[in-house]
């Protein structure tokens, strides 16, 4: 058995269904041996998107996403995708081909020190020097990527190692134990009891959920806990969908781009449970307010996140699913918090901001996202890109039983189409909608061909305002409308682009025909593209 066969075997042992990737000589031995396997391959159109596809796939399937590319430029192109996954703690294996072992370090054709380059964006990386190490490395890599705080792991494999005959018999390790890596799963019992006591005592408790709740698969436990103890819930951008957005206990997204009433609810609480959230700057721009006059409990699987941005009263390290199961197993629970919830409902009513109606020939983004949300299936997957479209999506899309995906930490433009592609492959029966601006569309439109090649049907909505809207809005506020590097001229005719890729094209340029168009647009499981004309001067707030 040669190295390339061993890699394929390892992936089979890990039940890998699909690999997103790109070819190149340095990874060719692997692509050759994958032909003998049932593992599906998806040839994307630029390497960065292989990682985004793997990310979307991982987030929907709950499994580790796998991507593979060649050495040098193939590997460096992948970096933004890896960094995006790292920022959002997405479990991923990135395999890169490398030049021959004895050539490493001599700057030969298509050589890049990829393990060095990605060091600050990966949970771990390997450069395989001995073909017999392959089974152990893959076992470890999958284990590291999918446990503790999840994240991408990169495996760099020289061309000669892929072709080399193993001298030891292939044996995939059944179990694994690493003395230097032992993530905490179970929460400390004393701390758990303390938290429960605080929940019982609190008059104005609130839970703020982050992406960790999805990663841990703890949404059911969380909802049960909130309902049982009558505790309202707010979320960060990554936490959207952990509780249905129309749940009576849900009070919106926090942060600069979130709801004012969600921030107020968090600040005025007397007990804040921060669950699987980093307390990052976009969610909490004033950490002092969320510790002031209250008990703050920070629950996270990564001990380094606790105390990094804010000092909690009670730190609790462990897997959220386990911890909430423990919470639920306690006999004691809080009485209702009627008064507090009433107050929050009042805030919500009072602080609801009304948007100015859209000008003639344009669609009001709020009305559009609300209509889209209503027209979508309850279990649909909504992938928002980055920019104004992301903020509008977060604000107005109602997640029911589906999922809401976006690049929260890194804010990578062009994430939505490839992530939706990966998500659709993980859940072929589900409706998958990607919402993006004309800027991000032009960063990722090459993947329309990938969709067509593999028959992956996505609903793509381009909110076209002829600008890089989010930054235009910033320049409107910060530079007195002195616009620089934000106007997109020369945009292609999207009806022709749709035709070129065999997609049906829809255009919406006013609120009146929006619902009818959306119904038609979403009806069949086919790839459709909808262009929504948005006022270039529209703001997110």
């Amino acid at each position, binding site marked *: 058995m040669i190295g390339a066969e061993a890699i394929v075997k390892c992936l089979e042992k890990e039940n890998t269904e699909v690999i997103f990737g790109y070819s190149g000589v340095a990874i060719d031995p692997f692509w050759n041996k994958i032909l003998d396997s049932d593992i599906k391959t998806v040839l994307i159109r630029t390497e960065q998107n292989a990682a985004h596809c793997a990310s979307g796939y991982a987030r929907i399937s709950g499994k580790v996403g796998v991507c593979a590319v060649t050495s040098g430029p193939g590997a460096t192109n992948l970096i933004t995708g890896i960094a995006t996954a790292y920022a959002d703690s997405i479990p991923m294996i990135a395999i890169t081909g490398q030049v021959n072992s004895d050539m490493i370090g001599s700057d030969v054709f298509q050589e890049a020190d990829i*393990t*060095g380059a990605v*060091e600050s964006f990966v949970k771990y990386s390997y450069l395989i020097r001995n073909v017999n190490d392959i089974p152990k490395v893959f076992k470890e890599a999958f284990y590291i990527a999918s446990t503790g705080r999840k994240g991408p792991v990169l495996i760099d494999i020289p061309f000669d190692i892929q072709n080399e005959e193993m001298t030891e018999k292939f044996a995939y390790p059944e179990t694994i134990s690493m003395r230097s*890596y032992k993530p905490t799963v179970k929460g400390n019992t004393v701390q758990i009891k303390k938290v429960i006591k605080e929940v019982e005592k609190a008059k104005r408790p609130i839970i703020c959920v982050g992406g960790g709740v999805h990663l841990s698969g703890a949404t059911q436990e969380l909802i049960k806990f909130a309902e049982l103890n009558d505790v309202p819930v707010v979320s960060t951008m990554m936490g959207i969908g952990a509780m249905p957005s129309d749940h009576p206990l849900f009070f919106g997204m926090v942060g600069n781009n979130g709801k004012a009433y969600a921030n107020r609810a968090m600040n005025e609480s007397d007990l804040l449970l921060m669950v699987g959230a980093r307390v990052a700057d976009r969610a909490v721009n004033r950490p002092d307010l969320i510790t002031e006059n209250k008990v703050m409990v920070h629950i996270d699987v990564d001990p380094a996140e606790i*105390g990094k941005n804010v000092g909690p009263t009670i730190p609790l390290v462990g897997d959220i699913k386990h911890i909430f199961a423990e919470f639920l197993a306690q006999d004691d629970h809080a009485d209702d918090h009627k008064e507090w919830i009433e107050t929050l409902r009042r805030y919500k009513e009072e602080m609801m901001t009304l948007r100015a109606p859209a000008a003639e020939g344009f669609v009001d983004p709020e009305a559009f996202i609300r209509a889209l949300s209503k027209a979508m299936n309850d279990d649909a997957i909504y992938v928002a890109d980055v920019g104004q479209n992301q903020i509008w999506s977060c604000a107005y899309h109602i997640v029911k039983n589906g999922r809401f995906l976006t690049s929260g930490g890194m804010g990578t433009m062009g994430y939505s189409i490839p992530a939706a592609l990966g998500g659709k492959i993980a859940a072929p029966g589900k409706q998958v909608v990607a919402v993006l601006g004309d800027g991000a569309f032009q960063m990722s439109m090459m993947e329309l061909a990938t969709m067509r090649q593999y028959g992956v049907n996505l609903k793509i909505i381009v909110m076209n305002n002829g600008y890089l809207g989010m930054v235009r809005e910033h320049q409107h506020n910060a530079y007195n409308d002195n616009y620089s590097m934000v106007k997109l001229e020369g945009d292609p005719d999207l009806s022709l682009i749709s035709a070129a890729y065999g997609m049906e094209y829809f255009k919406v340029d006013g609120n009146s025909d929006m619902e009818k168009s959306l119904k038609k647009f979403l009806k069949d499981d086919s790839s459709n593209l909808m262009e929504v004309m948005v006022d270039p001067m529209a703001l997110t707030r």
Partner: protein
Amino acid sequence: MKRIYSVLVENRAGVLSKVAGLFSRRNFNIDSMVVGETADKAVSCMTIVSTGDERTIEQIEKQLNKKIDVIKVKTFKESMSINRELMLIKVKYNKENRRDIMENCTIMNAQIVDMSKNMMIIQICDTSDRIEVFIEMLKSVSIVEIARTGTVALTKCREVN
């Protein structure tokens, strides 16, 4: 605040750069960093001296622990450990100051380990603070070159908290 981190790591290629990279990426300060083997050839010990506020000290320990190649991190104050650094210092001397230099060496327990007609190399093994004092004492002489190892440290046999 000064802290010493005694970090046991897997003795693998690239580990030093990963740990050093962590300090630069997270904007942590490194006063000194020493790496050497331990009794177990598969394990290396890094001794890192760093200064920072309380939050930084906590973050350094947590971020070090997060690195997959790190087996164990011990954080301690200087008072809790025996700390040593080795310095080699090359100085120019002449007839007038030779005796002075030798006296300083005796006081500070330093040894002259190499000599020529007008230059000598002095070796001293002591705490960083005392090495600073020794350098200060030699400032009146012409110092040619200095090489310092950085601090290595072990917690005291009876640990004082």
